[in-house]
Each structure stands twice: as C-alpha cells, then as structure tokens.
C-alpha cells in the first residue's frame, strides 16, 4: 500500500516537473509546479515529517507559486513565443543534463543503498522541530528574519524603480 502511494506520487511529481520544463506556456508551467509540489508534500508525509508537508503546501504551493503566477500574469507572458535559437547549445544542454542524471542515479543506486532503518519511532512533528529550532538554532532563525526583511526591501526597490518615479518610464522609453 505504501509502495503504491509512493510510486503513484513519484510518477505525478516527475511528470509534472517534466511539464514545467517542456511546456511553452509559463502559466501551465507554474500550475504544473504546484501539482509537483503537492506530490512532494505526500513524499514528506511518507518520510514521517507531517509538519514540513504542511509547510510545503502552505509556503511553497500557497505563497511562492502564487507570487510566480501573479508575476506571470502581471507581465502578460502567455502569448510570447520562445524562438528557437542556438540549437547547438540547447542540444548540449539536453545531453549534459541526461548524462548528469544517469550518473547521479547510477551512483546513488550503487553506493547509497541503505538496508535497514534504525529501530524506534522517529518524531518529526512540530513540537520536536520547534524545540530544536529555539534551542540550538536561535541565531540562524533570527538571521533568516533579517534576511526576509532585506528581501522585502530589495524586492520593493527593484520592482518599484520604474513605476514609482514619474520620469523613469519616459527615460526608459527613450533608451529603447
């Protein structure tokens, strides 16, 4: 039963990830990425980390991907076709990533095979993570809060530059 769930959602994750990479329309790509993240949340539940599965759904599929969709729709990219240029580089990209993947899977299946899990239950619920987070990881936690603040300020200054200033858009139009 567990194996059936694993293989079903592994197939879902891989297929939707392929749609993200291969589909021309970025809106379809973003929605497929949401589906792939949901399948990964199922993987997290199978790995006995239900708290992080909830975070995966709320933060990734809920917040980050909605940001992506907002930006895609804000920029009105649905009908922008991607012209095929640089075929040699594209071919090299496909072959390099194929060899990379084959090598990775080969060495993982050869050297990273663990036979047995250690005995005893593994508690990875919100309580355990919270205690660990505020005991040994308080300093990184505060650093992440400062980093998020810096990211907010940076995103505002970057994206509001040509909208907020009245003269900026005209000078941008002249430069084009």
């Amino acid at each position: 039963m567990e194996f059936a769930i694993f293989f079903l959602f592994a197939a879902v994750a891989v297929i939707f990830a392929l749609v993200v990479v291969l589909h021309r329309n970025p809106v379809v790509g973003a929605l497929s990425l949401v589906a792939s993240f949901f399948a990964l949340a199922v993987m997290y539940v199978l790995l006995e980390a239900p708290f992080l599965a909830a975070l995966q759904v709320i933060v990734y599929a809920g917040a980050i991907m909605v940001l992506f969709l907002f930006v895609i729709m804000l920029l009105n990219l649905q009908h922008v076709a991607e012209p095929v240029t640089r075929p040699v580089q594209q071919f090299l990209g496909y072959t390099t990533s194929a060899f990379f993947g084959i090598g990775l899977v080969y060495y993982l299946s050869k050297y990273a095979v663990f036979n047995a899990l250690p005995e005893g239950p593994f508690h990875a619920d919100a309580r355990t993570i919270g205690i660990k987070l505020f005991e040994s990881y308080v300093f990184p936690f505060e650093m992440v809060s400062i980093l998020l603040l810096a990211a907010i300020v940076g995103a505002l200054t970057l994206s509001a530059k040509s909208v907020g200033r009245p003269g900026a858009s005209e000078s941008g139009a002249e430069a084009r």
Partner: protein
Amino acid sequence: MIPTHYFLILSALLFTIGVCGVLTRKNGITIFMSIELMVNAVNLTFLAYARQFHQVHGLIFVFFIMAIAAAEAAVGLAIFISLFHHRDTIDVDEANLMHW
C-alpha cells in the same frame, strides 16, 4: 517502510529535470521555476537522510531552505519585473547589458 534510496533516486530525477530546464530554456521565469524544482529535490534528500539517521537537523535545514527560497523568489521576480520594464521581454538572451 519505503527504503531511503527510493527517495534519493526520485530526488535525483527531479534535480536532473531542474538542471535540464536551467540549461535549455530561455524564458527567465521558467528558469526560475526549474531552480525551485532543484531546491525541492534537495529538500527531499534532506528529509530522506533525516529519517535514515534519526536526526532532526535535516528537518531544521529544510525549514530554513523554505524561508530562504521565499526570499529568493521575491527578489528574483522583482529583478524580472525590472528587466521587463526595461527590455519588454524576460528572455534571458536579451539581458545582455553586461555582455562582453
């Protein structure tokens, strides 16, 4: 109980798909989504090893990676909005201001 290396191989496949997207696509937002895919593959690896070795540190790392991915997505998308305002495209071939 599903063995750990199943999860590792799934994670390797997802990471490879992400690498393929970064190397072959030209749409900036698609490249960004491929990077998110790679980040998630690494998260899966962290959780698989956390269960294998009964360590909570891997879970804490996934927590931090999620927070930093949120910051990265916000700043990266702001850069693409700025690029779109200046160039009217997010094709990364067009972003050649620092090109030699």
